[in-house]
């Protein structure tokens, strides 16, 4: 097994990083949260970030943190879906299909919230005035974020991207057929 630095992987899959940060920013805009700085892509760790005001609404805070998970997953799946069929099922793919698969996997693999996102949720829900239901939902999410972060060492994020781009179409086709 050869080692690929995370930074290099982020550069190779840069569309996913940009979509992830843009999703954070758009969720902030949706919930009327001022944004002070956005870095869509950079070399280094983190590959991008959004600096915004502390959010008083706990639900909004959580959605701003985990929103990119849904946005990246949905966009990645939709882009890769029609291309994964000729590539993996019909055996007659064109270069455009491979390009779509690359885009889909790149975007979906950056769906996982970062440790920074996890810390932001932690800061929000640890406060005493946080409703119980937010805590019930929030703590497992933080746990999953840290597990995902640990898993990214074993390419869990890449595996997730491939699962979304390849596995979802297979599941859908198998279920409908």
């Amino acid at each position, binding site marked *: 097994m050869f080692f690929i630095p995370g*930074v290099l992987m982020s550069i190779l899959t840069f569309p996913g990083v940009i979509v992830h940060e843009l999703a*954070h920013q758009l969720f902030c805009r949706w919930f009327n949260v001022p944004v*002070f700085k956005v870095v869509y892509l950079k070399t280094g760790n983190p590959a991008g970030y959004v600096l915004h005001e502390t959010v008083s609404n706990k639900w909004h805070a959580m959605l701003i*943190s985990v929103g990119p998970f849904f946005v990246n997953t949905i966009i990645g799946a939709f882009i890769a879906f029609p291309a994964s069929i000729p590539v993996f*099922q019909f*055996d007659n793919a064109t270069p455009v299909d491979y390009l779509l698969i690359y885009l889909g996997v790149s975007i979906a693999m950056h769906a996982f919230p*970062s440790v920074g996102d996890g810390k932001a949720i932690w800061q929000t829900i640890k406060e005493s005035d946080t409703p119980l239901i937010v805590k019930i939902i929030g703590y497992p999410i933080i746990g999953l974020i840290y597990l995902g972060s640990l898993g990214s060492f074993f390419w869990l994020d890449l595996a997730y991207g491939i699962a979304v781009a390849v596995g979802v179409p297979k599941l859908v*086709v198998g279920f409908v057929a």
Partner: protein
Amino acid sequence: MDNNLITETENTSEQIACIKCGSPQILAGYPNKLCADCRQQLIKFPIPLWVKLFGAGIALVMIISFIWLPGNLSAAIALSRAEKAEKSHDYITAQNELKKAQNNAPHAIEILSHLTIAAFHNGDFKTVLEASDKLQGKEIEDTALYNELNNVITQTNEYFPSDTFKTSFKKYKNLVIPDSAYRTYIKKNPMDIYTIVALASSYSDNNDKYQNADTLLSKAIAIDRSYIPALYLKTMIKRELNQPDSSIYYCDQVLLINHQSTYALSSKARTFLKVGKNKEGLLLAKQCYQLDADMPYNLATLALAYHFNKDFKQRDAILDSVKKDSTNAPYITYVKDIISNKIKFQN
């Protein structure tokens, strides 16, 4: 790959001016001291042009994907259904699904490969040749599929006259090949299954030669137990030799290979009718008609089944519907001969 989301800490100092523009008219109730204008500006924090263009590119790609999705998805569903049908030996269903898939992906290797296999089992050699031609020079990654396809193409050759056959019988171009010529050829080429079955077939119109045909067909089946024309003919010959159990056995042999072989189902229906199992015969004849409503042999069987079940209205409706097509003539004449008792069908 850490995409950090960093939150700004609350201002703790007794700042009374907007942290962005210095205006004293700050909006209360927020962690950061910002005036209304600056708050709105920061809520709508500008997205750089290149990011907007990137977003537009992603949106465009998504639109393309949306446009491609229905066609590819329906083709994939049809292929998946065809693969399931193929595994269950339901080759008519498989071929119908593959035709649907082919409409959306006419050059897909996987679809063409499965289509070749399904068409072979359905005896549709026109499709076998068309689909396998399109596969020439293409690389098939699935080894199991490749092997099966190879097997089918090799077997297809047995369904057509060999070069040796063509050369040997060149002089009979438009003439009936005599028995003796066939026999001499078979002596020299004892494994030429096509010729053995061709000779048996030439005997199938003559009641006195049914036994000879039967012997030849047994020889053919000994060479290749899955040679469909031999099994088909055997079902008929055994029926005509008053060996219904044996006829049904060979129908079932074909049905083991292809659960939807309309010829085998139809032949089995005729054998049931011959032994007086009229209801069973009609049931099977209807099943065949549902699978293939255009095959003259099936239509003739259904007409016969209605006849022996005394449903003359339905029988005549079928005979009326098919009389316009000249290709149906031999089948319809046979049914009419049975109806008029010219041929004694039932024991």
